[in-house]
């Protein structure tokens, strides 16, 4: 039996957002990487994955913010940010702008977290934290700052 897919109608705002996310206007290479799914499909799939892992986007974003706050004190050097975890924050001049149509201006700051025992590491920008917290968006597959929910949770919790 062939399942007939339901094609949701996109509003002009959705189309504009999709265009901005796939363009390089705000970040080199854009936010969608080589992901051919729509933005809402990416968000829905990651929300499902997150729920399966037993977390909410708010919990994840809050933990990311906590780690960034501790790591900032290292002034660009590695500091302990949790049990068996080191983190550091690098800052660059300027701001990162949220692609969603609202006032979202974040410091150009990148947090890197490393699990000492395994060497596994993950990084995020302040914009990543905002995108997860406010929009449930972990970015498209292949994007420079795509965060895999499973890896993120394994690393920071």
């Amino acid at each position, binding site marked *: 039996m062939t399942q007939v897919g339901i094609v949701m109608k996109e509003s002009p705002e959705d189309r504009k957002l999709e265009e901005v996310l796939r363009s*390089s*206007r705000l970040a*080199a290479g854009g936010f969608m990487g080589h992901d051919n799914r729509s933005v809402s499909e990416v968000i829905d799939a990651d929300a499902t994955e997150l729920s399966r892992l037993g977390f909410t986007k708010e919990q994840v974003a809050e933990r990311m913010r906590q780690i960034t706050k501790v790591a900032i004190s290292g*002034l660009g050097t590695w500091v302990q940010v949790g049990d068996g975890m080191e983190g550091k924050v690098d800052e660059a001049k*300027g701001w990162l702008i949220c692609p969603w149509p609202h006032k979202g201006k974040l410091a150009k700051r990148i947090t890197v977290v490393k699990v000492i025992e395994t060497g596994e590491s993950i990084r995020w920008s302040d914009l990543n934290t905002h995108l997860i917290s406010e929009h449930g968006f972990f970015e498209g597959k292949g994007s420079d700052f795509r965060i895999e929910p499973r890896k993120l949770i394994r690393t920071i919790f």
Partner: protein
Amino acid sequence: MVLEILVAVTVVSLIGTVLAALLTICEHFIADYGPCQISINDESDVTVKGGKDLLSMLTAERIFIPSACGGRGTCGLCKLKVLEGAGPLLPTEEPYLEKEERESNVRLACQVKVRGDLKIEIPQELLAVREYTCKCVEITDLTHDIKQFRLELIEPTTIDYIPGQYVQLLTPVYEKSDEEIYRAYSISSNPAEKSVIELIIRLVPGGICTTYCFEYLKVGDEVKINGPYGDFRLLDSDAPIVFIAGGSGMAPIKCMLHHMKNTDNKRKTIYYFGANEPRELLLTDLMREFEKQLANFRFVPVVCEPEDSNVLGCEIGLVTHAVQRDLKNATECEAYLCGSPGMIDATIKVLEELGVSEDKIFYDKF
């Protein structure tokens, strides 16, 4: 039957063409603001065709206002006074303007549409800003994520700037960016070399300009810069100097040190340079050379990870800790800082605790 189809297609095409022509004519007349006069500092006027934003109109007239976001209203750098003709303040400008600035008619040039005559004020130093076409003649790896780019000026062939100032580098449209964009970088070169500009740039993952510089810009390529900008500079005094920097914050300090050497400056100077680990230290050999060439200069590299640090003669810990431990006669000093906002904020706190007065601390935040 065929004839009827052809007639129908022709009629539809004709109607489409007429509508398109009407639209173009309407746009031409309705959205045509005609020639607009921009009066600058009550000294000179330029006449432009209205309809676009003030920033791009001034750029077209070769008047360069600093802007790091390419006119998207996201950096808040392109501030100038618009005394007449700007219309009401836009919500897009509000987050970038202090109360005093709003009261004195400061606006973001990229958000002000030129729809009539304007009266504006531009700081005199910006009127001296020029655009330079350059050739990239050398790219040097300084650390795993910092490179130095040497740009030879083609037209105009020389540049004058004050050590500590910066230029804007134009990133052209390339594979990972759909539009031209400017980013600001401090000049690191020897100011005596007037036909050359050197920039020290750290790779920002996902950064539009730094990705271009690191992955696409090659020796021999032509690039455009404009400048110089900025008021980060050495004061003319005899006070001891404390330089504190990290990463690509080396750039303006290096330029100042060249200038001090060129002018045989004998001020007592100490330079704390912070890095995470020894491999992130840069231009250490040049700094040691400056120690020999300048009468009263000491370079203090500071690393957090102690591995091999003894070999390099490094202090261990955060740069702020090294300053706390090591800096004598702080109350007499002038401090010049360049680095990340976090590093600058923490350093200012330490300097104030050591007794350096606020009006003697100068900084250039990334």
